[in-house]
């Protein structure tokens, strides 16, 4: 009886453990390839263009509206305590520490983890990955490492842009439309509320989120099976898993920074 339960538990856990092992191996190889030749600089630039420049419009839109909505939400709450002048501080701390990195990562995850998984998945089911190996190219070096580097580099940059645009959205809402505070006070409180640790906090997150998005997208793409249906499945899995991991890792990084003494 006990043996049967044990065997069933093993059967249940085996696919997840296998997937974790494969993901760890893929990640290790992708990171190791950063320091190994050949380097595919053109592919990195192409991916950075697609992921970074391609995501810019949607990141700007989302950043702007999240900053504006936050200012609007805070307007009433702060007015109750006669602290309307502090709206800049709240918008900047929330955006830089939390909303900027997470929202940008979720957008890029939806847009690019799916794109990466479907592109690599299509290559897998049409045997292009096998052809690449047969023709003397390591698919991890050619496909995974450039995407890893490009996403890890561009996501922090996109987050910085989202933070600035969000602050501008908050400024428009609180200073121009609601007249909660003066322009000078808004920007001064927004600037003073942040210290170096917040900036580091806000940049480490997107760096790690970028790695997660690229690696999950590539992993799901590379293990695609079963034709076009399989590609669709891999795409969905990539977005869902990358998004869930963004939240989990966000909690972990926030916990680390919260428990650290202020610099």
């Amino acid at each position, binding site marked *: 009886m006990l043996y049967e339960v044990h065997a069933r538990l093993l059967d249940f856990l085996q696919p997840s453990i296998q997937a974790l092992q494969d993901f760890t191996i893929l990640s290790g190889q992708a990171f190791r390839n950063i320091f190994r030749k050949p380097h595919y600089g053109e592919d990195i630039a192409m991916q950075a263009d697609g992921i970074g420049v391609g995501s810019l419009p949607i990141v700007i839109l989302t950043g702007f509206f999240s900053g504006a909505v936050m200012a609007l939400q805070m307007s009433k709450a702060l007015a109750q305590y006669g602290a309307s002048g502090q709206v800049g501080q709240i918008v900047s701390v929330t955006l830089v520490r939390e909303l900027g990195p997470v929202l940008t990562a979720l957008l890029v995850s939806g847009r690019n983890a799916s794109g990466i998984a479907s592109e690599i998945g299509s290559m897998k089911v*049409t*045997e*292009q990955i*096998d*052809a690449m*190996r*047969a*023709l*003397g*190219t390591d698919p991890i070096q050619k496909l995974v490492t450039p995407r890893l580097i490009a996403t890890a580099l561009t996501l922090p940059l996109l987050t910085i842009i989202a933070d600035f645009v969000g602050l501008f959205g908050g400024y428009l809402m609180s200073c121009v439309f609601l007249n909660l505070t003066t322009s000078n006070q808004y920007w001064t409180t927004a600037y003073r509320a942040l210290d170096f640790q917040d900036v580091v906090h806000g940049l480490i997150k997107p760096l790690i989120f970028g790695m997660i998005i690229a690696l999950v997208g590539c992993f799901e793409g590379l293990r695609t099976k079963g034709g076009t249906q399989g590609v669709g499945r891999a795409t969905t899995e990539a977005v869902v898993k990358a998004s869930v991991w963004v939240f989990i890792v966000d909690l972990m990084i926030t916990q680390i920074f919260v428990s650290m003494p202020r610099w």
Partner: protein
Amino acid sequence: MPPVLSFDRVTVRFEDQAVLDRVTFTVQPGETRILFGEAGSGKTVLLKTALGLVHPESGMVKLFEQEITGLKEKQLFDVRGRVGMLFQEGALFDSATVEENVAYPLLNRSVDGVKPDRFPEIERRVLRALEFVELEHTLEKFPSELSGGMRRRVGIARATVTEPALVLYDSPTAGLDPITANTIMALIVKERELRNTATVIVTHRYQDGQIMGNFRYDTTTGKIFPSPRVANTIFMVMRDGRLIFEGTQADLESSPDAYIRKFVRR
């Protein structure tokens, strides 16, 4: 002469199922092997195992006398450079032009003294390979702009641009109309005859085997002509991962086995 490819009791398992079961055979230089078998019988896995794309659970695979079973991926690149492979449906890179696809094997490594950075020489080799398959006018086209038969021909050009000693063809005529299929087979005969290449062809069509076994290429007319029973053509049949037949066309045609007879004169 030493064999170009040999399998010695090779077994490949996917999960619990043996997709290749103790397969043993050898391919001599210049020899042609035609491999028949139903879908799922292990034909494609056999070709991929020969290239080291699939790793066997047991047994030994040798390419050009070098055992490849224990080699790591990067160690396999050199030996793979001496083998060409046409994948099912061609497996051309979607995002690359025909020229880039055919140049790919030359850009990755030095082949016969052609260094990856010597672009004029690479261009010349690419053009020659495309002229061989009569598609020299498609250099700038993308695979999506080509018909199924043209994609297969570009695949042949890519597989043979390095002039390998062994070429593996995975269902080169699958899904093509009879006229296009015969054009593809004529190209494969031409490749074999002009370069004395060892050839392994996986196919469902008996006609493909017949063309390989009974036709030769005439360099003066540029066409293939009947030449019954080309000596170095061996037929093989696979069933459920096992190699159940290996012999000449006459042996194949006289086999009493119902499964084997399914592949004769269809």
